[in-house]
């Protein structure tokens, strides 16, 4: 090929990436820029793409809620903290329970092994709306509405099958020879699992933990139904609540949105090399 034609091709392809970059970055950068502006500047026409008087007030009020004047940043601070607690609890339980189950499903042949595996894939597809009524009825009669524990339990319905499925995919890549050698030495199944398999599976456990945390952080439907007080809401519900109700402090809500998006974005960047394999194995992000 003539060099200049190759150069032209490169240039053409590069020009094609520009609208893609624009589509990806324009919305989120505008949101970030708007979250740094004052309420008055947000409404200016023509639009100020970059605020002339940028301010960190919206962020500082959420990070230091005791100094906040309006109730929006205070509620956000509580909601983000609720999300952290609930998503962490869900992650820890899923990793503990899920990795044990996944190991048995991958490495121990027993009756119903295959049926359980197929059942787990099928349950992964069941939408939250199909489970909500019974969970709500039980939660109301046990007075668990507004308690974090009901959300942690409800989140198991999508997080645990997902965690098991990801760990199954990971354990399948652990060479079986490792186990055979240990078995020869008279090591028990549980000994093998905890002393040999778990230590070499740390990358799998970590990426599964990331996916589960992101799923729980993202969850909205259960949290909407199971929480009614400001003190118990998670970040997504708080955002939805304020977007519908408080028309006054929009830039404050924008800052809240950015802060709620930061933990997943940071986690995704740290663990980016696991993302595609996790996507393919889990196939559905909730």
């Amino acid at each position: 090929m003539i060099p200049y034609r190759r150069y032209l091709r490169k240039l053409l392809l590069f020009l094609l990436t520009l609208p893609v970059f624009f589509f990806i970055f324009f919305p989120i950068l505008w949101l970030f820029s708007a979250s740094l502006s004052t309420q008055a500047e947000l409404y200016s026409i023509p639009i100020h793409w970059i605020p002339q008087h940028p301010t960190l007030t919206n962020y500082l009020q959420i990070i230091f809620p005791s100094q906040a004047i309006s109730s929006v940043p205070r509620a956000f601070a509580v909601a983000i903290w609720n999300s952290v607690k609930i998503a962490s609890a869900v992650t820890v339980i899923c990793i503990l329970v899920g990795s044990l189950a996944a190991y048995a499903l991958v490495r121990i042949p027993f009756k119903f092994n295959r049926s359980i595996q197929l059942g787990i894939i099928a349950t992964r597809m069941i939408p939250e709306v199909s489970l909500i009524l019974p969970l709500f009825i039980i939660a109301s009669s046990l007075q668990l509405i507004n308690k974090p524990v009901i959300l942690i339990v409800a989140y198991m319905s999508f997080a645990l099958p997902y965690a098991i499925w990801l760990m199954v995919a990971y354990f399948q890549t652990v060479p079986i020879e490792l186990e055979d050698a240990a078995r020869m030495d008279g090591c028990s199944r549980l000994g093998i699992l905890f002393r040999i398999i778990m230590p070499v599976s740390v990358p799998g456990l970590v990426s599964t933990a990331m996916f589960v945390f992101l799923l729980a952080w993202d969850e909205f439907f259960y949290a909407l139904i199971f929480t009614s007080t400001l003190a118990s809401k998670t970040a997504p519900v708080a955002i939805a609540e304020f977007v519908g109700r408080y028309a006054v402090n929009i830039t404050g809500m924008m800052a809240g949105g950015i802060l709620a998006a930061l933990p997943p974005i940071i986690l995704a960047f740290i663990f980016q090399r696991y993302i595609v394999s996790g996507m393919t194995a889990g196939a559905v992000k909730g």
Partner: protein
Amino acid sequence: MPRRSSLSLRQQDARTAWLLVTPALVIILGVMLWPIVYTFILSFFNAPTGLNQVRTFIWLGNYIAMIKDPEFWDTIKRTLYFTIVSVVLEMAMGLGVAQLINSHPWGWKFLRFALIVPWAVPTIVNGAMWRWIYSADFGALNGLLMQFGLIKHYVPWLTFPNLAMPLVILADAWHTMPFVALILQAALAALPEELDEAAAVDGANAFQRFWSIRLPLLRPAILVALIARTVEAFRVFDIVYIITSGGPANSTLTITFFTYLNSFPWGKQGVGAALSFLISIFTISMALIFIRVLYRPEETQ
């Protein structure tokens, strides 16, 4: 003797397996199987919300009421509209971006990296962001169009029933296209380069190579993304809730949103149960197709 000892080893193994699997099974049965059965039973009752309300068994009453309700059929139509348009759009964009990354233009690594941002942004934050972008008072869409002189006054985009659904679909595409793009890009990158070179030697042009060589080989990955996205799109709720809450004039009222309204704000749990059972049937049948695709890759080739 050897037979007995090997049998007991197997039994021991099976016992360990059940020990390991039981906690997970108890949780899954408790938070999934039991609610599904309960929902099914509830769908045959007239069940108003509230702890002390009396439930009466009405056979298929909820299902009959559901079928007779024209709003139900409208929500089905809207859900199919959302599902088909958003999945086709996301698949097309995803495939395009995947192919673009794989052609290795300048900055392709950064592009692949950048895709993680919209994917990681929580659904509700994404919805709120687009609601603000479409805002009639300060929205970036109005700001952009005015800057280019395409509009003279700010337009209240989300008040038009015909526009609301496409705008929700665009917002959804921002969040979900990266998933499709990243899966397909990984699959494209795994294809052997020799195939492409051989076809090029035989005189196939770039489009022919894409259409008749890479696309058929991508079929398993495309199916995985397609089915995953279809199941997700069919049960869309969060983004509709935050951008339009089903409006304007019910133009974005999808089946899950309709189920939510029946089950909670309207207090008709029986109807809600019937609707959610219907959604389960659809998603489980999609899951069965999914299992076939995953478990018999040789058939999909």
